[in-house]
C-alpha cells in the first residue's frame, strides 16, 4: 500500500499489548518480562469471541451431555439382543441395530460414557504424574533432575501402544478404570518434559528467590509461585492428555484389548469391523462411534488452539 510522504498513515504493524506499551522499558532497554496472563474478565472477553474455543467447547459439551442423559433416552440396554439384526435406523432404534440385534444408539451413548471416563481418568493421571515429575525435575535440578530425566526418556521412547498391548494381554482388563490407569501410566512423559522446561526458566526468576527468602520450602514454592504462572499451559496440557487418552483407549478397544463385556466406541468399531459391517453396508454401526471419537477429540484440540490464542495476546486476531 503506497502512501504519501505527509499525512496518510501507513498501517503496517501488529499491535503491541497495552501492558507492554505502557510499562516502561528499563534504561538498558532490556525487554519487559512477558505480559501477565489476562485477568479473568479479560479472559472471558476474549474467550467468548474466539470461535475455535467456543466451537470446540460446544462440541465437547454436547457429547458430554449426550453421554450423561443419552442412556436414559432409550429403553434398550446396549448389549441386549432385542431388535432385528442389521436393522436400519428407525423410530424404535434411532441408530439402527447391530448384526446381533443390539441397539446402536444405546451402545453409542454408553460408549460415550466410557470414553469420557477413560479420558478424564487416564488423562488426569498422566497429568498428575507429568506435572509432579516435571516440577520436581525442573525445580530441583542436579542429580534429582538427572534421574527423573532418565526415567522420562525411557518411558518416552518405549512404544506405548506396544507396551499396552503386551500388558493388556497379561493383565485382564476388566474395567475402564484399569484401562485408564494403564494409559495414564504411559502417556505422561511429554507433559513432564514440557513442565520441566518451563519450570527451569521460571526458577531463575527473582521472585522465586524472594519466596525462598521468606522461608518457603520447595513444595510451597512450586505450588504457590511456579504452577500458577503456568496455569494456562497446565490447562491446555490436560486437555491434550484428555484427548490423547480417549484416542489410545479407543485404539486399545478396537484391537480387542479393552474390557470385553462392556461397551465403548472402540469396541463398537471392533465389532462392526469383525462383522463386516462395511461390506454389508451397515454404516449406522460404525459411523456414529467413529464420528463420536473424531468429534470429541477434534473438539478438544480445536478448543486448545482457541485457548492458545486467548492466552497469548500475540496470536490474537483483532
Amino acid at each position, binding site marked *: 500500500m503506497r502512501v504519501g510522504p505527509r499525512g496518510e498513515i501507513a498501517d503496517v504493524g501488529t499491535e503491541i499489548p497495552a501492558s507492554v506499551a505502557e510499562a*516502561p522499558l528499563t534504561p*538498558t532497554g532490556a525487554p519487559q518480562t512477558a505480559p501477565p496472563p489476562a485477568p479473568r474478565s479479560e479472559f472471558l472477553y476474549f474467550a467468548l469471541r474466539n470461535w475455535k474455543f467456543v466451537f470446540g467447547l460446544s462440541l465437547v459439551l454436547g457429547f458430554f451431555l449426550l453421554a450423561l442423559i443419552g442412556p436414559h433416552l432409550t429403553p434398550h440396554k446396549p448389549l441386549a439382543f432385542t431388535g432385528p439384526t442389521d436393522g436400519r435406523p428407525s423410530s424404535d432404534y434411532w441408530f439402527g441395530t447391530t448384526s446381533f440385534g443390539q441397539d446402536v444408539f444405546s451402545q453409542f451413548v454408553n460408549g460415550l460414557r466410557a470414553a469420557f471416563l477413560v479420558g478424564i481418568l487416564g488423562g488426569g493421571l498422566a497429568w498428575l504424574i507429568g506435572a509432579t515429575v516435571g516440577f520436581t525435575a525442573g525445580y530441583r535440578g542436579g542429580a534429582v533432575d538427572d534421574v527423573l530425566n532418565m526415567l522420562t526418556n525411557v518411558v518416552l521412547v518405549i512404544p506405548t501402544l506396544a507396551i499396552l498391548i503386551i500388558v493388556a494381554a497379561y493383565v485382564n482388563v476388566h474395567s475402564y478404570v484399569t484401562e485408564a490407569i494403564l494409559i495414564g501410566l504411559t502417556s505422561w512423559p511429554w507433559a513432564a518434559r514440557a513442565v520441566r522446561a518451563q519450570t527451569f526458566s521460571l526458577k531463575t526468576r*527473582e521472585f522465586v*528467590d524472594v519466596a525462598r527468602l*521468606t*522461608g518457603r520450602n520447595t513444595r510451597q514454592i512450586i505450588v504457590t509461585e511456579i504452577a500458577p*504462572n503456568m496455569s494456562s499451559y497446565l490447562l491446555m496440557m490436560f486437555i491434550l492428555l484428555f484427548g490423547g487418552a480417549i484416542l489410545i483407549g479407543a485404539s486399545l478397544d478396537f484391537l480387542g484389548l479393552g474390557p470385553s463385556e462392556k461397551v465403548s466406541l472402540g469396541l463398537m468399531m471392533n465389532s462392526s469391523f469383525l462383522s463386516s459391517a462395511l461390506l454389508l453396508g451397515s454404516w449406522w454401526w460404525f459411523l456414529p462411534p467413529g464420528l463420536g471419537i473424531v468429534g470429541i477429540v477434534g473438539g478438544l484440540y480445536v478448543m486448545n488452539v482457541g485457548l492458545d490464542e486467548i492466552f497469548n495476546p500475540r496470536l490474537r486476531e483483532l
Partner: protein
Amino acid sequence: MLKLDACSKTYRVGAFGGGELLAVSDVSFEVAPGEVVALIGESGSGKSTIGKMILRLLRVSGGTITFDGVDISSLEGRKLKEYYADVQAVFQDPFSSYNPIFKSDRVFAMLRHEYFQGLSGSEWQAKLERSLDSVSLSPPDVLGKYPHQLSGGQLQRLLIARALLLDIRILVADEIISMLDASTRIDVLNLLGELKSRGLGVLFITHDLSLGHYISDQTIILRRGKVVERGSTQKVFGNPIHPYTKMLLASVPQLHKKWEEAATELEVPAAIAGERPIAAVEETPGPLVEVEDDHFAAVGPE
C-alpha cells in the same frame, strides 16, 4: 556482624560434572552495623555469587560465613527463618522480583503469613504503613496494584519496605538500581544512605564505580572471583594501587573529564581496541597486603 572468611564457590561443569569452575576464591571481608560495603566487579567477577552465598541461596564450597559468630551453613528450618529475619535482599530486576500474575502487595502478605501471624489486621496495617512511609511511598499509590502498573523505582522501594518490616540488620542490594532510570536511581540510593544512618548494614553489589563511591564506606574490588583491592572507599578511590582498580577507574565515563585525562592521571595506558587493555594485570593476584591503614591490595603473583 557479618563476616566472610576465605570463602569460595566451585561449580561442577561438563558432561558428567567432571570439570570445575572456580567462581569465587578466597574472599574475606566484614560488614559492620551502619556500614555500606560496596562489592564492585564486572560481569563474571562472582559478586552476585557472593551475595547469594550470604543469603543461603547457594551453598558455600569453602571457607565460612558467620553472622554474629554463628556459621550460617549450619542453619536449617526455624533457625534459617530467624536468619532471614535479620538478613534480606533486593535484586536487580524489579519486574522479575514479583510474580507477575499476582498483585505486588502479595510479597507483604507472604511475609505476614510466615512471620507475623500473631498480629491483628489493624496492627499489621499500621506496621505496613510505617514501613512504606520510611521508603517514601504512599499506600494508596502502591497497594492493590499489579507489578506492571508500577514503576521500577516504586517496585524496588516496595521490596526495601518489605525487608524493613522484619527489622533486618543486613540488606544485600544486588545491582538494585542498574535497571532504573537515572532520575529515580539517586532516590533509591539516598534511601540506602538514610537506612545506613539508622544502623542498617548494606552490602551494595554493583559494577558502577561512581555509585559505589557515592554511597559506600568500604569498597571491595573483585576480579574473576578474587579480591584485588579493598579498604575504605576514600582510600581505594583516592589512591588506587592495583592495576585492575586503576583500569576500572580510568574506564568509567565521567561527566567532566575525558577518558584520556583520566587515564593519564592514573598512569594507565590509553585503552586500545582489545578485550582487556591492561596486559599487566596478573592472572592470579596474590594475597592481600596492607598498603596503608584500612587499605589492602593484592600485589605480585603467588
